[in-house]
């Protein structure tokens, strides 16, 4: 039966990636009639007036067709008499580098297009570098647009020399250069008559015949995906064999514990087998009960690291920049571990390969970092065992896949891994708490239900796993602000201090709830400025005066009416209504729990 080759096409914008693949499918009669029809139709509507635009076969998203560019990876499938192929056509724009990397992580071989009239560009180097980083070993440089340079042999040889130099620089293993014209079809599926001086195969023939070597990693490795326990009599460990071979009766070791056991029985899918090999989805039974759960790794005849620190090369993919001290969820094989970037050692200049000192890393940049894991984890160098050396880092708030990386080497505690020049800031502290710090500013009349509501909201947030702090009259007026009275000046100072404290607590990563009458607009505006607009949520508890006075829980309204309390808000001191509160709620209409749930629901927008 036929083998499968997964490859990608990459290179700079307008080097003709989509056109090349489109032409290959078209020439090799690998299109369905309706696809061909849609293609001709789209070409007519599009900008190239009638001539077939092969790239339209692959640019599938509306935004791509509108802008005439490739944004995301497209996968295409075709089969020739010799082989089955999956090709990932990747975007050339720098902005979409991460989507290009997605394609690269999936492929065995990369076809990198080079515009013969322009030569090797920064983006060519970037893509070659990322392909190598993601573990691709086979490269074809398709020197495209040969028709535009009159199929000139000398220019081709000159470019080939540059590519050899680049290959040495990037340590690329197997490299082939083929002169092609994607629009004209030279050397795409058949050897071109325009370039008799080229004695190699056409691109398609080369892809059909190239030998992609089998896995040469040492020993048996199987990360455990899950434990299968349909009933008391059966206990099996399920996972995919990543390398090597194991048979019934042989001894295996389970990491991280290091416990050993003999293999009692094996399933490949649902078939009983004696031996399992690389690539199989298996279930393994052992001769005795040992503690194995998801994330453990079964090995034989090889050693992996069980440690909590390593140095890795990252491709940063998030819009948010990377700084030291940031905390992530790291996924490696079947393990998920909280991890911290301890040190950015340097970033790699995509063009020159030079190591550049850096304090922060931006989207699409490559950096070498020291990473500390929250617990002992099983891993290896990417060069030794791919699956045990590749990982992603997930932002704990947005859940975005912020980075992918490959492990260069393990580190020991004695390697003196300390916080370097890092200053912990709000972002780093709050990332550890997995939340966005903010201040929920409850305002309203005395007796409106601010404190009860803030209390109930805090309980819900706490149950959700948030870290919170409630500031109200009881814990602020009696301590920090006990020297302040109720005159307008003192009220302003009271609010200013509360705002400053709330801000400090936000910096500590906490979600702060404040419950104060805060009757003056100017004070609330001041508080918002201190705390920061993006962290300030004004919640107006709008229970009407009559209701508050009716409740009069503390008997304050009665006293105020009698004139015993001067400057009592609502009676003999004004309450200035909020004009645009972020959330408004009249506690008169709800039970307190309902009101709290409503507030939390409204908060979803900000959390």
């Amino acid at each position, binding site marked *: 039966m036929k083998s499968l080759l997964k490859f990608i096409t990459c290179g700079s914008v307008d080097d003709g990636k989509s056109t090349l693949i489109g032409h290959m499918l078209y020439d090799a009669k690998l299109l369905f009639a309706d696809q061909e029809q849609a293609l001709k139709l789209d070409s007519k509507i599009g900008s190239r007036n009638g001539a077939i635009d092969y790239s339209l076969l692959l640019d599938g*998203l509306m935004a791509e067709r509108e802008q005439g560019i490739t944004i995301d990876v497209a996968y295409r*499938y075709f089969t020739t008499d010799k082989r*089955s192929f999956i090709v990932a056509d990747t975007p050339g724009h720098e902005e979409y580098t991460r989507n290009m990397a997605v394609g690269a992580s999936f492929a065995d071989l990369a076809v990198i297009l080079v515009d013969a009239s322009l030569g090797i560009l920064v983006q060519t180097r970037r893509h070659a570098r990322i392909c190598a980083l993601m573990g691709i070993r086979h490269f074809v440089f398709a020197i495209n647009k040969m028709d535009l340079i009159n199929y000139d042999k000398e220019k081709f040889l000159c470019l080939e020399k540059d590519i050899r130099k680049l290959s040495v620089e990037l340590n690329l293993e197997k490299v082939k250069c083929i002169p092609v014209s994607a629009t004209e079809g030279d050397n795409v599926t058949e050897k071109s008559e325009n370039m008799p001086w080229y004695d190699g195969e056409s691109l398609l023939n080369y892809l059909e015949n190239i030998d992609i070597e089998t896995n040469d990693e040492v020993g048996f490795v199987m990360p455990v995906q899950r434990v299968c326990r349909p009933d008391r009599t059966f206990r099996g460990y399920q996972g995919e064999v990543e390398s090597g071979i194991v048979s019934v009766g042989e001894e295996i070791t389970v990491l991280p514990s290091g416990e050993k056991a003999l293999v009692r029985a094996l399933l490949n899918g*649902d078939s009983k087998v004696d031996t399992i090999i690389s*690539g199989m989805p298996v279930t393994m039974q052992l001769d005795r009960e040992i503690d194995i759960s998801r994330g453990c790794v079964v090995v034989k005849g090889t050693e992996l690291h069980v440690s909590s620190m390593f140095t890795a090369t990252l491709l940063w993919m998030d819009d948010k920049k990377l700084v030291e001290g940031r905390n992530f969820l790291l996924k490696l094989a079947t393990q998920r571990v909280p991890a911290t970037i301890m040190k950015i050692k340097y970033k790699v200049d995509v063009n020159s390969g030079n190591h550049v000192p850096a304090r922060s890393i931006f989207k699409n940049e490559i950096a070498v970092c020291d990473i500390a894991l929250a617990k002992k984890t099983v891993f290896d160098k990417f060069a030794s065992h791919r699956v045990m050396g590749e990982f992603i880092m*997930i932002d704990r708030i947005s859940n975005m896949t912020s980075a992918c990386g490959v492990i260069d080497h393990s580190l020991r505690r004695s390697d003196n891994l300390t916080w370097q020049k890092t200053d912990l800031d709000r972002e780093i502290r709050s990332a550890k708490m997995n939340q966005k710090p903010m201040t929920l500013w409850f305002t309203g009349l005395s007796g409106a239900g601010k404190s009860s509501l803030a209390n109930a909201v805090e309980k819900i947030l706490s149950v959700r796993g948030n870290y919170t702090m409630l500031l109200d009259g009881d814990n602020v007026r009696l301590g920090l602000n006990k020297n302040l009275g109720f005159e307008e000046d003192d009220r302003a100072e009271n609010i200013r201090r509360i705002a400053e404290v709330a801000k400090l607590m936000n910096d500590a990563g906490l979600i702060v709830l404040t419950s104060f009458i805060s009757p003056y607009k100017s004070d609330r505006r001041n508080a918002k400025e201190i705390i920061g607009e993006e962290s300030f949520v004004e919640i107006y508890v709008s229970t009407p005066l009559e209701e508050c006075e009716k409740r009069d829980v503390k008997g304050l309204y009665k006293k105020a009416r009698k004139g015993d309390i001067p400057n009592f808000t609502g009676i003999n001191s004004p309450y200035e209504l909020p004009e645009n509160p972020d959330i408004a709620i009249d506690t008169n209409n709800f039970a307190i729990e309902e009101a709290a749930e409503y507030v939390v629901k409204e908060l979803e927008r900000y959390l």
Partner: protein
Amino acid sequence: MSNAMNYLDVLESEAIYIMREVVSECEKPVMLYSIGKDSSVMLHLALKAFYPEKPPFPFLHVNTTWKFREMIEFRDKRAHDLGIEMLEYINEDGVRQGINPFDHGAAYTDIMKTQALKQALDKYGFTAAFGGGRRDEEKSRAKERIFSFRDSSHGWDPKSQRPEMWKCYNTEIKKGESTRVFPISNWTENDIWQYIRRENIPIVPLYFAAMRPVVEREGNLIMVDDDRMRLLPGEKPQMKMVRFRTLGCYPLSGGVESNATTIDQVIEETLSATESERTSRVIDKDGGASSMEKRKREGYF
């Protein structure tokens, strides 16, 4: 990959790996089951992936009430024989309003399929739904990740898909959000048929040619499956040797004339086919090349 693995083994292994990851990391998974051949392959893969355990999640069939009768029979028999949990969801609101494929066109698909699916996922609170979508089916599918992230209203944002690296799948979601997972993304129609043959997977008999009552409409052969079928003036059902390349609602599924009554004959026809399979599904023609992407943004599977 070892030499001993051919391309079907590679595809099978990838799908099983993905299914096991979802069950291990997602809170409440479900497998969408449409009764078609892709669903038959998905079910078969699920049986293999967790063997000897039964698939540790329920299956969900969103029924538009216009499916071929043979499909429903097949579904019930499979669920019974295998002892798996098969949920059925019908948008009763749509039924009450009398929504049907003859009068309501695109609105029918939206109400009885897209809306029904969203309602069903919300009703049970599923956080991850396996689907049998393949990237070779259509251009916007060709761009979708295996783990496709949906916001709380089930919408797909094609411009901000999470990068999907190697086999490190990011399954993290927030409350209210969900994931659609496509374990057979990398399979082609031909792979599906080859695998059905190799593994001897039961499929609905409608995939094989038989004499069936059909009418011809706009180049499609539509089967008259029950008396709800509205015949146009002058239309008269004729008996023809017909088989179906894709199955769905019978008034929207175009059959092809064929004599392929065995799996080998079907594969031979498929290999020499000059039209991709979605052309025989009538609904995709509305709105041109981008119609699928539009529907997906709104929550279509």
